[in-house]
Protein backbone atom coordinates (compact mmCIF):
# COMPACT_ATOMS: atom_id res chain seq x y z
CA UNK A 1 0.00 0.00 0.00
CA UNK A 2 2.92 2.29 0.63
CA UNK A 3 3.56 3.29 -2.93
CA UNK A 4 3.96 0.81 -5.72
CA UNK A 5 6.84 2.85 -7.01
CA UNK A 6 9.19 2.27 -4.12
CA UNK A 7 11.74 0.47 -6.28
CA UNK A 8 11.26 3.09 -8.94
CA UNK A 9 12.22 5.75 -6.39
CA UNK A 10 15.41 4.07 -5.33
CA UNK A 11 16.31 2.98 -8.87
CA UNK A 12 17.84 6.24 -10.18
CA UNK A 13 20.30 6.34 -7.28
CA UNK A 14 21.08 2.63 -7.49
CA UNK A 15 21.51 2.70 -11.27
CA UNK A 16 23.77 5.76 -11.30
CA UNK A 17 25.96 4.31 -8.59
CA UNK A 18 26.02 0.81 -10.05
CA UNK A 19 26.60 1.91 -13.62
CA UNK A 20 29.12 4.69 -13.12
CA UNK A 21 30.91 3.70 -9.92
CA UNK A 22 30.63 -0.05 -9.27
CA UNK A 23 30.86 -1.29 -12.85
CA UNK A 24 34.01 0.74 -13.62
CA UNK A 25 35.47 -0.44 -10.32
CA UNK A 26 35.01 -4.11 -11.22
CA UNK A 27 36.22 -3.46 -14.76
CA UNK A 28 39.42 -1.84 -13.48
CA UNK A 29 40.01 -4.75 -11.13
CA UNK A 30 39.71 -7.08 -14.13
CA UNK A 31 41.94 -4.93 -16.34
CA UNK A 32 44.67 -5.02 -13.69
CA UNK A 33 45.08 -8.70 -14.58
CA UNK A 34 45.44 -8.07 -18.30
CA UNK A 35 47.69 -6.48 -20.86
CA UNK A 36 45.66 -3.77 -22.53
CA UNK A 37 46.49 -0.68 -24.58
CA UNK A 38 42.93 0.55 -25.11
CA UNK A 39 42.87 -0.60 -28.73
CA UNK A 40 43.56 -4.32 -29.06
CA UNK A 41 41.39 -6.58 -26.89
CA UNK A 42 42.61 -7.02 -23.31
CA UNK A 43 44.82 -10.07 -22.93
CA UNK A 44 44.74 -12.05 -19.68
CA UNK A 45 48.14 -12.14 -17.97
CA UNK A 46 47.23 -13.05 -14.39
CA UNK A 47 49.17 -11.30 -11.64
CA UNK A 48 52.01 -10.22 -13.96
CA UNK A 49 51.29 -6.50 -13.52
CA UNK A 50 51.49 -6.80 -9.75
CA UNK A 51 54.74 -8.77 -9.96
CA UNK A 52 56.15 -5.99 -12.14
CA UNK A 53 55.02 -3.41 -9.57
CA UNK A 54 57.12 -5.05 -6.88
CA UNK A 55 60.42 -4.10 -8.43
CA UNK A 56 59.48 -0.96 -10.29
CA UNK A 57 61.67 1.87 -8.97
CA UNK A 58 59.03 4.44 -10.04
CA UNK A 59 56.48 2.79 -7.82
CA UNK A 60 58.89 2.79 -4.89
CA UNK A 61 59.41 6.54 -5.33
CA UNK A 62 55.71 7.15 -5.58
CA UNK A 63 54.99 5.10 -2.45
CA UNK A 64 57.65 7.10 -0.61
CA UNK A 65 56.18 10.40 -1.80
CA UNK A 66 52.66 9.31 -0.91
CA UNK A 67 53.92 8.49 2.60
CA UNK A 68 55.48 11.96 2.87
CA UNK A 69 52.13 13.40 1.85
CA UNK A 70 50.23 11.39 4.46
CA UNK A 71 52.55 12.09 7.36
CA UNK A 72 53.10 15.70 6.33
CA UNK A 73 49.36 16.29 6.09
CA UNK A 74 48.84 15.06 9.64
CA UNK A 75 51.55 17.35 10.99
CA UNK A 76 50.98 20.51 8.96
CA UNK A 77 47.45 21.20 7.72
CA UNK A 78 45.85 19.13 10.50
CA UNK A 79 48.23 19.90 13.37
CA UNK A 80 48.62 23.59 12.59
CA UNK A 81 44.89 23.78 11.87
CA UNK A 82 44.19 22.49 15.36
CA UNK A 83 46.59 25.05 16.80
CA UNK A 84 44.90 27.95 15.03
CA UNK A 85 41.48 26.65 16.09
CA UNK A 86 42.44 26.29 19.74
CA UNK A 87 44.06 29.73 19.77
CA UNK A 88 41.11 31.47 18.19
CA UNK A 89 37.87 29.67 18.99
CA UNK A 90 36.92 31.55 22.15
CA UNK A 91 38.48 34.97 21.66
CA UNK A 92 36.56 38.00 20.56
CA UNK A 93 36.66 38.53 16.82
CA UNK A 94 38.08 35.03 16.28
CA UNK A 95 36.52 34.90 12.83
CA UNK A 96 38.63 37.86 11.70
CA UNK A 97 41.80 36.23 12.95
CA UNK A 98 40.88 33.12 10.98
CA UNK A 99 39.99 34.90 7.74
CA UNK A 100 43.55 34.84 6.29
CA UNK A 101 43.51 31.05 6.55
CA UNK A 102 40.06 30.71 5.01
CA UNK A 103 40.76 32.67 1.83
CA UNK A 104 43.09 30.15 0.15
CA UNK A 105 40.81 27.19 0.75
CA UNK A 106 38.45 28.01 -2.07
CA UNK A 107 41.27 28.03 -4.63
CA UNK A 108 41.39 24.88 -6.68
CA UNK A 109 44.50 22.85 -7.37
CA UNK A 110 44.90 24.63 -10.68
CA UNK A 111 44.44 28.06 -9.10
CA UNK A 112 46.94 27.06 -6.44
CA UNK A 113 49.54 26.23 -9.03
CA UNK A 114 49.00 29.54 -10.81
CA UNK A 115 49.64 31.37 -7.54
CA UNK A 116 52.65 29.40 -6.43
CA UNK A 117 54.62 28.67 -9.56
CA UNK A 118 55.77 32.30 -9.90
CA UNK A 119 56.65 32.21 -6.19
CA UNK A 120 58.62 28.98 -6.35
CA UNK A 121 60.19 29.48 -9.77
CA UNK A 122 63.89 29.95 -10.29
CA UNK A 123 63.81 33.77 -10.24
CA UNK A 124 60.68 33.80 -8.11
CA UNK A 125 59.60 35.52 -4.93
CA UNK A 126 60.67 32.78 -2.51
CA UNK A 127 64.25 32.81 -3.72
CA UNK A 128 64.37 36.61 -3.66
CA UNK A 129 62.87 36.75 -0.20
CA UNK A 130 65.21 34.15 1.27
CA UNK A 131 68.18 35.49 -0.66
CA UNK A 132 68.97 32.04 -2.01
CA UNK A 133 68.81 30.26 -5.32
CA UNK A 134 66.97 27.02 -4.69
CA UNK A 135 65.26 24.89 -7.30
CA UNK A 136 62.25 24.21 -5.09
CA UNK A 137 60.45 21.94 -7.49
CA UNK A 138 63.43 20.09 -8.94
CA UNK A 139 65.10 17.70 -6.55
CA UNK A 140 63.39 14.97 -4.55
CA UNK A 141 62.25 14.91 -1.85
CA UNK A 142 62.44 18.73 -1.59
CA UNK A 143 59.90 19.20 -4.32
CA UNK A 144 57.35 17.07 -2.50
CA UNK A 145 57.99 19.01 0.70
CA UNK A 146 57.65 22.33 -1.12
CA UNK A 147 54.32 21.19 -2.52
CA UNK A 148 53.30 20.02 0.92
CA UNK A 149 53.86 23.55 2.21
CA UNK A 150 51.73 24.93 -0.61
CA UNK A 151 49.11 22.37 0.31
CA UNK A 152 49.30 23.51 3.94
CA UNK A 153 48.74 27.07 2.86
CA UNK A 154 45.54 25.95 1.17
CA UNK A 155 44.18 23.30 3.52
CA UNK A 156 44.84 24.81 6.93
CA UNK A 157 41.64 26.85 6.80
CA UNK A 158 39.20 24.03 6.35
CA UNK A 159 40.75 21.99 9.14
CA UNK A 160 40.67 25.02 11.40
CA UNK A 161 37.03 25.57 10.53
CA UNK A 162 36.10 21.98 11.36
CA UNK A 163 37.99 22.13 14.65
CA UNK A 164 36.40 25.46 15.58
CA UNK A 165 32.89 24.17 14.92
CA UNK A 166 33.69 21.21 17.16
CA UNK A 167 35.35 23.25 19.88
CA UNK A 168 32.42 25.63 20.08
CA UNK A 169 29.96 22.80 20.44
CA UNK A 170 31.64 21.02 23.36
CA UNK A 171 29.88 21.54 26.69
CA UNK A 172 31.03 24.51 28.74
CA UNK A 173 30.49 23.01 32.21
CA UNK A 174 33.49 20.65 32.44
CA UNK A 175 35.76 23.46 31.23
CA UNK A 176 34.36 25.92 33.77
CA UNK A 177 34.69 23.33 36.53
CA UNK A 178 38.31 22.64 35.60
CA UNK A 179 39.04 26.36 35.49
CA UNK A 180 37.63 26.73 38.99
CA UNK A 181 39.92 23.91 40.08
CA UNK A 182 42.81 25.97 38.78
CA UNK A 183 43.50 24.24 35.46
CA UNK A 184 44.63 26.48 32.63
CA UNK A 185 46.56 26.62 29.38
CA UNK A 186 48.13 23.37 28.31
CA UNK A 187 46.75 21.37 31.24
CA UNK A 188 43.22 22.48 30.54
CA UNK A 189 43.63 21.58 26.87
CA UNK A 190 45.34 18.25 27.46
CA UNK A 191 43.03 16.86 30.11
CA UNK A 192 39.65 18.48 29.46
CA UNK A 193 39.28 19.94 25.97
CA UNK A 194 41.24 17.33 24.00
CA UNK A 195 39.26 14.31 25.30
CA UNK A 196 35.98 16.14 24.66
CA UNK A 197 36.85 16.94 21.07
CA UNK A 198 38.14 13.49 20.22
CA UNK A 199 35.18 12.39 18.07
CA UNK A 200 35.65 15.48 15.93
CA UNK A 201 39.40 14.97 15.69
CA UNK A 202 38.65 11.49 14.41
CA UNK A 203 36.58 12.97 11.57
CA UNK A 204 39.17 15.57 10.59
CA UNK A 205 42.08 13.13 10.70
CA UNK A 206 40.08 10.54 8.77
CA UNK A 207 39.23 13.02 6.02
CA UNK A 208 42.82 14.21 5.78
CA UNK A 209 44.16 10.67 5.74
CA UNK A 210 42.06 9.58 2.80
CA UNK A 211 42.55 12.84 0.90
CA UNK A 212 46.33 12.74 1.34
CA UNK A 213 46.56 9.15 0.12
CA UNK A 214 44.85 10.26 -3.09
CA UNK A 215 46.97 13.41 -3.68
CA UNK A 216 46.84 14.22 -7.37
CA UNK A 217 45.78 17.72 -8.44
CA UNK A 218 48.49 19.79 -6.83
CA UNK A 219 51.30 17.52 -8.01
CA UNK A 220 49.86 17.32 -11.49
CA UNK A 221 49.65 21.05 -11.95
CA UNK A 222 52.93 21.99 -10.26
CA UNK A 223 55.35 19.32 -11.46
CA UNK A 224 53.33 16.71 -13.38
CA UNK A 225 55.18 14.24 -11.16
CA UNK A 226 58.59 15.27 -12.45
CA UNK A 227 61.27 16.00 -13.07
CA UNK A 228 62.21 12.45 -13.98
CA UNK A 229 59.10 11.12 -12.19
CA UNK A 230 60.64 11.92 -8.79
CA UNK A 231 57.63 13.72 -7.31
CA UNK A 232 54.93 11.29 -8.38
CA UNK A 233 52.34 10.03 -5.94
CA UNK A 234 50.44 6.79 -6.43
CA UNK A 235 47.54 8.66 -8.02
CA UNK A 236 49.87 10.46 -10.44
CA UNK A 237 51.69 7.24 -11.31
CA UNK A 238 48.38 5.61 -12.12
CA UNK A 239 47.40 8.47 -14.41
CA UNK A 240 50.74 8.51 -16.22
CA UNK A 241 51.00 4.76 -16.73
CA UNK A 242 47.50 4.75 -18.16
CA UNK A 243 47.03 7.90 -20.15
CA UNK A 244 50.60 8.87 -20.97
CA UNK A 245 52.18 5.43 -21.46
CA UNK A 246 48.90 3.82 -22.65
CA UNK A 247 49.61 0.80 -20.44
CA UNK A 248 46.03 0.41 -19.20
CA UNK A 249 46.61 -2.92 -17.49
CA UNK A 250 49.58 -1.69 -15.50
CA UNK A 251 47.84 1.59 -14.69
CA UNK A 252 44.85 -0.37 -13.43
CA UNK A 253 47.14 -2.42 -11.19
CA UNK A 254 48.42 0.83 -9.65
CA UNK A 255 44.80 1.94 -9.16
CA UNK A 256 44.06 -1.34 -7.38
CA UNK A 257 47.04 -0.84 -5.07
CA UNK A 258 45.88 2.71 -4.32
CA UNK A 259 42.37 1.48 -3.57
CA UNK A 260 43.59 -1.31 -1.31
CA UNK A 261 45.91 1.03 0.60
CA UNK A 262 43.17 3.66 0.99
CA UNK A 263 40.62 1.06 2.04
CA UNK A 264 43.00 -0.59 4.49
CA UNK A 265 44.02 2.72 6.04
CA UNK A 266 40.39 3.80 6.44
CA UNK A 267 39.46 0.43 7.91
CA UNK A 268 42.32 0.33 10.42
CA UNK A 269 41.70 3.92 11.34
CA UNK A 270 37.94 3.53 11.77
CA UNK A 271 38.40 0.36 13.80
CA UNK A 272 40.68 2.17 16.21
CA UNK A 273 38.23 5.03 16.50
CA UNK A 274 35.17 2.89 17.04
CA UNK A 275 36.77 0.79 19.77
Amino acid at each position, binding site marked *: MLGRFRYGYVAPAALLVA*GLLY*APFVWTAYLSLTRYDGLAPAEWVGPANFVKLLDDPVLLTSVRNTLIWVIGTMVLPVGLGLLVAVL*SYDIKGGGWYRLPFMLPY*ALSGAGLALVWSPILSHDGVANNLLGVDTAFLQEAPHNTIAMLLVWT*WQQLGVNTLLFVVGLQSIPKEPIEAARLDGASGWQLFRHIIWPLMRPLTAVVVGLALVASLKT*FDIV*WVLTQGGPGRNSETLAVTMYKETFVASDYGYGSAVAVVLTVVTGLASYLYLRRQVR
Partner: protein
Amino acid sequence: MIRRAVLIVLGLIWLGPTYLLLVNASRPADSYDPSRAWAPPGDFSLVTNFLRALDSADLGASLGSTALYSVVSPALGVLVGALAGYTIVVLRLRHGFWWFLLIFGGTVFPAQMLLVPLFVGYSDAGLYDSRLGMILIYTAINVPLAAFVLRNFYTGVAFSIFEAARMDGASTFRIFWRIYLPLSTSALAAVFILEFTFIWNDLIFGLTLTQTAEVRPVMTALAGLMTDVYAGTPVPVGLAAGLVVSLPTVVLFLATQRLFARGLSLGSV
Protein backbone atom coordinates in the same frame (compact mmCIF):
# COMPACT_ATOMS: atom_id res chain seq x y z
CA MET B 1 47.85 38.21 24.39
CA ILE B 2 50.35 35.59 23.22
CA ARG B 3 47.48 33.84 21.48
CA ARG B 4 46.61 36.91 19.45
CA ALA B 5 50.27 37.53 18.62
CA VAL B 6 50.74 33.99 17.29
CA LEU B 7 47.55 34.26 15.27
CA ILE B 8 48.58 37.58 13.79
CA VAL B 9 52.05 36.39 12.81
CA LEU B 10 50.70 33.21 11.22
CA GLY B 11 47.91 35.18 9.58
CA LEU B 12 50.38 37.62 8.02
CA ILE B 13 52.41 34.74 6.62
CA TRP B 14 49.22 33.30 5.15
CA LEU B 15 48.19 36.63 3.66
CA GLY B 16 51.53 36.96 1.84
CA PRO B 17 50.70 34.73 -1.14
CA THR B 18 47.12 36.06 -1.19
CA TYR B 19 48.53 39.58 -1.42
CA LEU B 20 50.91 38.55 -4.19
CA LEU B 21 48.02 37.02 -6.07
CA LEU B 22 45.87 40.15 -5.83
CA VAL B 23 48.65 42.60 -6.60
CA ASN B 24 50.16 40.73 -9.50
CA ALA B 25 46.86 39.74 -11.05
CA SER B 26 46.07 43.47 -11.20
CA ARG B 27 49.42 44.46 -12.69
CA PRO B 28 49.62 45.37 -16.38
CA ALA B 29 50.56 42.15 -18.14
CA ASP B 30 53.93 43.27 -19.42
CA SER B 31 55.21 44.98 -16.28
CA TYR B 32 55.65 41.87 -14.12
CA ASP B 33 59.09 41.68 -12.60
CA PRO B 34 59.78 38.86 -10.09
CA SER B 35 62.11 41.02 -8.01
CA ARG B 36 59.43 43.71 -7.63
CA ALA B 37 56.51 41.37 -7.10
CA TRP B 38 55.62 42.98 -3.76
CA ALA B 39 55.26 46.50 -5.15
CA PRO B 40 51.72 47.79 -5.68
CA PRO B 41 50.55 47.67 -9.29
CA GLY B 42 50.76 50.93 -11.20
CA ASP B 43 47.54 50.65 -13.17
CA PHE B 44 44.66 48.38 -12.29
CA SER B 45 44.56 45.84 -15.11
CA LEU B 46 42.80 42.86 -13.58
CA VAL B 47 39.95 43.00 -16.06
CA THR B 48 42.22 43.46 -19.06
CA ASN B 49 44.34 40.53 -17.91
CA PHE B 50 41.34 38.30 -17.38
CA LEU B 51 39.90 39.18 -20.78
CA ARG B 52 43.23 38.34 -22.33
CA ALA B 53 43.18 34.92 -20.62
CA LEU B 54 39.59 34.35 -21.74
CA ASP B 55 40.68 35.04 -25.25
CA SER B 56 43.93 33.11 -25.44
CA ALA B 57 42.86 29.96 -23.60
CA ASP B 58 39.22 29.97 -24.67
CA LEU B 59 38.28 30.06 -21.00
CA GLY B 60 34.84 31.50 -21.71
CA ALA B 61 33.45 28.27 -23.13
CA SER B 62 35.00 26.24 -20.32
CA LEU B 63 33.57 28.59 -17.72
CA GLY B 64 30.11 28.12 -19.17
CA SER B 65 30.43 24.34 -19.12
CA THR B 66 31.74 24.31 -15.58
CA ALA B 67 28.87 26.51 -14.42
CA LEU B 68 26.46 24.07 -16.04
CA TYR B 69 28.12 21.01 -14.49
CA SER B 70 28.44 22.43 -11.01
CA VAL B 71 24.82 23.53 -10.81
CA VAL B 72 23.00 20.75 -12.67
CA SER B 73 24.91 17.75 -11.33
CA PRO B 74 24.67 18.54 -7.60
CA ALA B 75 21.00 19.48 -8.05
CA LEU B 76 20.25 16.17 -9.76
CA GLY B 77 22.45 14.22 -7.35
CA VAL B 78 20.83 15.77 -4.30
CA LEU B 79 17.33 15.05 -5.65
CA VAL B 80 18.10 11.48 -6.60
CA GLY B 81 19.88 10.85 -3.30
CA ALA B 82 17.10 12.45 -1.27
CA LEU B 83 14.48 10.38 -3.04
CA ALA B 84 16.46 7.22 -2.27
CA GLY B 85 16.88 8.25 1.37
CA TYR B 86 13.15 9.00 1.61
CA THR B 87 12.23 5.65 0.07
CA ILE B 88 14.54 3.74 2.39
CA VAL B 89 13.56 5.49 5.61
CA VAL B 90 10.02 6.77 5.21
CA LEU B 91 8.56 4.27 2.76
CA ARG B 92 10.42 1.51 4.63
CA LEU B 93 11.79 -0.14 1.55
CA ARG B 94 12.32 -3.87 2.10
CA HIS B 95 16.02 -4.60 2.78
CA GLY B 96 16.38 -0.85 2.94
CA PHE B 97 19.65 -0.99 4.82
CA TRP B 98 21.26 -3.06 2.09
CA TRP B 99 20.05 -0.65 -0.57
CA PHE B 100 21.55 2.10 1.50
CA LEU B 101 24.87 0.28 1.83
CA LEU B 102 24.91 -0.33 -1.91
CA ILE B 103 24.39 3.34 -2.66
CA PHE B 104 26.64 4.75 0.04
CA GLY B 105 29.35 2.19 -0.82
CA GLY B 106 29.94 4.21 -3.99
CA THR B 107 31.98 6.73 -2.01
CA VAL B 108 34.86 4.39 -1.29
CA PHE B 109 36.33 4.19 -4.79
CA PRO B 110 39.15 6.60 -5.60
CA ALA B 111 38.63 8.36 -8.94
CA GLN B 112 41.68 6.49 -10.27
CA MET B 113 39.74 3.25 -10.01
CA LEU B 114 37.09 4.60 -12.38
CA LEU B 115 39.10 6.44 -15.01
CA VAL B 116 40.05 3.70 -17.46
CA PRO B 117 36.59 2.12 -17.82
CA LEU B 118 34.95 5.53 -17.97
CA PHE B 119 37.36 6.61 -20.69
CA VAL B 120 36.96 3.43 -22.72
CA GLY B 121 33.22 3.08 -22.04
CA TYR B 122 32.52 6.72 -22.82
CA SER B 123 34.45 6.43 -26.08
CA ASP B 124 32.38 3.41 -27.12
CA ALA B 125 29.09 5.00 -26.09
CA GLY B 126 29.78 8.32 -27.77
CA LEU B 127 29.87 10.08 -24.41
CA TYR B 128 33.55 11.00 -24.53
CA ASP B 129 34.00 14.76 -24.70
CA SER B 130 30.28 15.43 -24.25
CA ARG B 131 28.48 17.59 -21.70
CA LEU B 132 26.00 14.79 -21.04
CA GLY B 133 28.82 12.43 -20.12
CA MET B 134 30.30 14.94 -17.69
CA ILE B 135 26.93 15.62 -16.07
CA LEU B 136 26.33 11.88 -15.68
CA ILE B 137 29.58 11.11 -13.88
CA TYR B 138 29.45 14.23 -11.70
CA THR B 139 25.87 13.36 -10.72
CA ALA B 140 26.73 9.76 -9.89
CA ILE B 141 29.58 10.91 -7.67
CA ASN B 142 27.18 13.13 -5.69
CA VAL B 143 24.55 10.50 -5.07
CA PRO B 144 26.15 8.51 -2.22
CA LEU B 145 26.78 11.53 -0.01
CA ALA B 146 23.33 12.96 -0.71
CA ALA B 147 21.67 9.64 0.09
CA PHE B 148 23.70 9.34 3.28
CA VAL B 149 22.97 12.81 4.61
CA LEU B 150 19.28 12.80 3.66
CA ARG B 151 18.71 9.30 4.99
CA ASN B 152 20.07 10.45 8.33
CA PHE B 153 17.98 13.58 8.17
CA TYR B 154 14.72 11.78 7.37
CA THR B 155 15.33 9.29 10.19
CA GLY B 156 14.90 12.24 12.54
CA VAL B 157 11.57 13.37 11.05
CA ALA B 158 8.45 12.22 12.94
CA PHE B 159 6.69 9.45 11.05
CA SER B 160 3.31 10.91 12.03
CA ILE B 161 3.85 13.63 9.43
CA PHE B 162 3.86 10.97 6.76
CA GLU B 163 0.83 9.20 8.22
CA ALA B 164 -1.18 12.40 8.42
CA ALA B 165 -0.41 13.21 4.78
CA ARG B 166 -1.40 9.70 3.75
CA MET B 167 -4.70 10.15 5.58
CA ASP B 168 -5.31 13.21 3.48
CA GLY B 169 -4.82 11.09 0.41
CA ALA B 170 -1.49 12.47 -0.84
CA SER B 171 0.60 10.20 -3.07
CA THR B 172 4.01 9.07 -1.83
CA PHE B 173 5.80 11.19 -4.41
CA ARG B 174 3.72 14.23 -3.54
CA ILE B 175 4.58 13.78 0.12
CA PHE B 176 8.25 13.65 -0.81
CA TRP B 177 8.07 16.67 -3.07
CA ARG B 178 5.80 18.88 -0.98
CA ILE B 179 6.74 17.92 2.59
CA TYR B 180 10.00 16.04 3.01
CA LEU B 181 12.04 17.92 0.43
CA PRO B 182 11.17 21.39 1.79
CA LEU B 183 11.77 20.13 5.35
CA SER B 184 15.32 19.17 4.50
CA THR B 185 16.42 22.39 2.80
CA SER B 186 19.38 22.94 5.11
CA ALA B 187 20.73 19.42 4.63
CA LEU B 188 20.19 19.68 0.88
CA ALA B 189 21.99 23.00 0.82
CA ALA B 190 24.95 21.64 2.79
CA VAL B 191 25.42 18.80 0.33
CA PHE B 192 24.83 21.05 -2.67
CA ILE B 193 27.48 23.55 -1.59
CA LEU B 194 30.02 20.83 -0.94
CA GLU B 195 29.40 19.20 -4.30
CA PHE B 196 29.28 22.49 -6.17
CA THR B 197 32.76 23.27 -4.88
CA PHE B 198 34.00 19.77 -5.64
CA ILE B 199 32.81 19.88 -9.24
CA TRP B 200 33.88 23.49 -9.83
CA ASN B 201 37.38 22.52 -8.74
CA ASP B 202 37.53 19.10 -10.38
CA LEU B 203 40.58 18.45 -12.48
CA ILE B 204 40.89 14.73 -13.08
CA PHE B 205 37.58 13.85 -14.73
CA GLY B 206 37.92 16.83 -17.01
CA LEU B 207 41.47 15.78 -17.86
CA THR B 208 40.42 12.22 -18.70
CA LEU B 209 37.01 12.57 -20.30
CA THR B 210 37.13 15.79 -22.31
CA GLN B 211 39.10 17.30 -25.10
CA THR B 212 37.48 20.36 -26.68
CA ALA B 213 37.32 23.78 -25.09
CA GLU B 214 33.51 23.81 -25.11
CA VAL B 215 33.20 20.66 -23.00
CA ARG B 216 36.37 20.87 -20.94
CA PRO B 217 35.80 22.15 -17.38
CA VAL B 218 37.55 25.36 -16.49
CA MET B 219 40.06 23.94 -13.99
CA THR B 220 41.34 21.53 -16.59
CA ALA B 221 41.62 24.40 -19.05
CA LEU B 222 43.41 26.42 -16.39
CA ALA B 223 45.85 23.58 -15.72
CA GLY B 224 46.54 23.63 -19.45
CA LEU B 225 47.25 27.36 -19.23
CA MET B 226 49.86 26.55 -16.57
CA THR B 227 52.24 25.06 -19.09
CA ASP B 228 51.83 28.31 -20.99
CA VAL B 229 52.78 30.37 -17.94
CA TYR B 230 56.28 29.08 -18.51
CA ALA B 231 55.91 29.26 -22.25
CA GLY B 232 54.97 32.88 -22.67
CA THR B 233 51.66 33.72 -21.02
CA PRO B 234 52.56 36.63 -18.74
CA VAL B 235 52.27 35.85 -15.03
CA PRO B 236 49.61 38.54 -14.41
CA VAL B 237 47.35 37.01 -17.07
CA GLY B 238 47.62 33.56 -15.49
CA LEU B 239 46.99 34.97 -12.03
CA ALA B 240 44.01 37.01 -13.17
CA ALA B 241 42.49 33.90 -14.74
CA GLY B 242 43.06 31.88 -11.56
CA LEU B 243 41.61 34.63 -9.39
CA VAL B 244 38.44 35.29 -11.37
CA VAL B 245 37.75 31.61 -11.92
CA SER B 246 38.07 30.97 -8.18
CA LEU B 247 35.72 33.80 -7.20
CA PRO B 248 32.49 31.77 -7.18
CA THR B 249 33.85 29.19 -4.76
CA VAL B 250 35.59 31.79 -2.61
CA VAL B 251 32.38 33.79 -2.22
CA LEU B 252 30.25 30.69 -1.66
CA PHE B 253 32.68 29.28 0.87
CA LEU B 254 33.08 32.47 2.87
CA ALA B 255 29.34 33.07 2.88
CA THR B 256 28.46 29.58 4.04
CA GLN B 257 31.41 28.43 6.15
CA ARG B 258 29.31 26.79 8.84
CA LEU B 259 27.03 24.96 6.46
CA PHE B 260 30.07 23.87 4.53
CA ALA B 261 31.77 22.49 7.62
CA ARG B 262 28.58 20.67 8.52
CA GLY B 263 28.41 19.07 5.12
CA LEU B 264 32.03 17.97 5.36
CA SER B 265 31.74 16.37 8.76
CA LEU B 266 28.42 14.76 7.82
CA GLY B 267 29.91 13.16 4.79
CA SER B 268 32.87 11.56 6.46
CA VAL B 269 31.37 9.19 8.99
